[in-house]
């Protein structure tokens, strides 16, 4: 799980072009959207593609994404439980 969280932070920084950030700048339980990291709806689309590309998870219910993308922790938990690769 720890490795997955670190891997996710690196992927988020790379995929979302968070140029001035290091993995250490993102806390595991920090909110990714809104007041936390400040991601927006285009970033959400990028994260949906990231889940499918890297972990073989296809999100069918858009309402799910609100809970899944709450933080690095919630993403990692969802990936652990649903990954196909």
């Amino acid at each position, binding site marked *: 799980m720890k490795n997955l969280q670190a891997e996710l932070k690196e992927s988020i920084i790379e995929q979302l072009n968070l140029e001035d950030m290091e993995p250490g700048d993102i806390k595991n339980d920090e909110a990714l959207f809104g007041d936390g990291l400040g991601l927006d709806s285009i970033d959400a689309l*990028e994260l949906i593609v990231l889940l499918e590309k890297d972990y073989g998870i296809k999100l069918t219910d858009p309402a799910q994404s609100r809970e899944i993308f709450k933080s690095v922790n919630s993403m990692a938990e969802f990936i652990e439980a649903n990954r196909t690769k």
Partner: protein
Amino acid sequence: MKPKIYINSISSITAQSRDKEESPVSYYKSIFPAISPNYKDYIKPMTLRRMSKAIKMGISAAKMALQEAEIENPDAIITGTGEGCKQDTEKFLENLIDQDEQLVTPTSFIQSTHNTVGGQIALNLGCKNYNLTYTQNSASLESALFDTYLQFLETSGKKSVLVGGVDELSEKITGFRNLDGQLKTGKIHNLDLFKEASAGTITSEGAHFFILSTEKSGNCYAEFKDISIKNSIEPEQINAEVENFLHKNNLGIDAIDAIVLGKNGDNRYDYYYSILQDSLFKNTLQLGYKHLVGDYDTASGFAVYLACKILKSGSISSVMKLNTLRPGKIKNILIYNQYLGSDHSLILLSAV
């Protein structure tokens, strides 16, 4: 009645530094990038991160022009771009190939369209007014200016229009110009561009924005008198075209104090300029600029920018001069541009 249109503010991002006109930057290659301002002065870092250079240059130049005119929200945003957001187009297409047309990430696709810059400026300003982008090869900026002219002519409600042009370099699509023989081969010094008797030119990128208004501000640079665009003109007709344009504006050749020419060192097409230089404007101050900023579809924005500065300040950088004439006070400047013998444009500016 034709209203008077004023250029109340100007901005420029090019391969030249804005405050060192007398000591221009030298480049020794046919493709060179624009010098970036500190984009964080104009764009929030969280939105800046996913922007290509065209978007960054476009928003920054637009904001510079708005700040100078002390306008927060213009009545219209009109943008010209010859090739649009090429960097995102390439990224999107490469993604498409790499991912076997599956799981393509959305950002580069969303931002790959030609009207992205105009849209992003509007989003950044929260401006919901008239917003249009023109893509007409090397007459793209001129088409945007022409629309601006029509907006003022046909509607009395618009007071200030943000109009400009932007084009960026990209690895593959800019490279196509090379493959097509549009760029010079071998080593070339940009400042020696007009000494080269060979095919092709040099290219770069940039953004220019202007606030045009029917109300003259205290900071006004020039009056925007008229514009004309023609897709094709036979070389032997170029003199007549210019004379007709000036006649329409009740001006003779003698009334033009300086002509800014889009000469780009391509000996296959520069004769259009040479004809004017050797005949109608033989006794007129002739200026060039593409040896400084390269040639790209909206490079003529730099000509408008320079002409505005000259009309306001009266001073002319020696590096622009193509002849040695010394005119008195500069009242009228004519700008003529064409690329590969097509998309001929004339812009007439006057001192205020």
